[in-house]
């Protein structure tokens, strides 16, 4: 399967889904008009990756997301947590700008209820 790239827009992040390498990147800002519709390809892709038992790395590098996007991020994390619980290999990296305490706190909150390996990483 080819690498799938969704270009970023002013209100939606860049998304890279690399089946061969088992990498999902979500980068930028997320407040599309319809978050559930926007993230549908990501859920479809995760579904096929987890079915194929591929080791997975998921990188979140988000500067901002609205509440309907936050629900989608939680849904993605829940899928990864379930995959991890079924012995799937998966790790999550949560990047936040070094002075962005809110995004750090969000990462801490989002990882508090799940068991999947989850790293908080600052960048400048």
């Amino acid at each position, binding site marked *: 399967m080819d690498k799938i790239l969704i270009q970023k827009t*002013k*209100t939606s992040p860049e998304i890279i889904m690399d089946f061969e390498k088992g990498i999902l990147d979500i980068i930028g800002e997320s*407040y*599309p*008009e319809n*978050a559930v519709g926007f993230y549908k390809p990501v859920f479809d892709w995760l579904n096929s990756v987890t079915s194929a038992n591929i080791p997975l790395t998921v990188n979140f590098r988000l500067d*901002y997301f*609205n*509440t*309907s996007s*936050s*629900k989608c991020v*939680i849904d993605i994390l829940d899928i990864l947590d379930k995959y991890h619980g079924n012995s799937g290999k998966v790790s999550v990296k949560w990047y936040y700008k070094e002075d*962005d305490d*809110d995004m750090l706190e969000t990462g801490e*909150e989002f990882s*508090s*209820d799940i068991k999947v390996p989850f790293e908080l990483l600052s960048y400048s």
Partner: protein
Amino acid sequence: MNESGGLYNQYLGIKDHKILVSFKGAVSQDILTEFGTMIKSSLSAETKTNRIFAVFVELAQNILHYSAEKESNSIGTAGVGIILLKEKQDRFFLSSGNMVDNKNVEKIKAKCEKVNGMNKDQLKAFHQELIRGDRPKDGISRGAGLGIVDIARKCDSPIDCIVNPVDDAISFLTLSVSFKKDNQ
């Protein structure tokens, strides 16, 4: 109103503060994106910018999705409402107003009262509970029903919720919050 009287009286009334955003009309995704970009650039020196921007997006998308007054054009349908962002000496004030169906008024008021009575930790726990729960099936929330809680966590005031009854079917709902400036 005397349309030919110029803007002088209006100017005098707001002489001591700034109006950063003043909009009334259909709040499309494009419009809210443009205002959002403008807010970020005009407040770039403030540490609260990201929070003000985030609350602006929630309020504007509320109007876009849930206003009981809609306007359609070739691009799509968007809710009609009014948004104001003012800067005074010590605070920023952000308000939104739009028509809502009367059957939803009590639910919205109750939610505001509930979050206004919560402290920081209670809001965090309530947020966690909602985000982990199913999407609400109350017929009024398209997202996760999280907007009001998120606004309460980001602003520095209670959420002021004022309802003006219009007729048997609809009311006008105003939501107002404020943000302390850095040096306050």
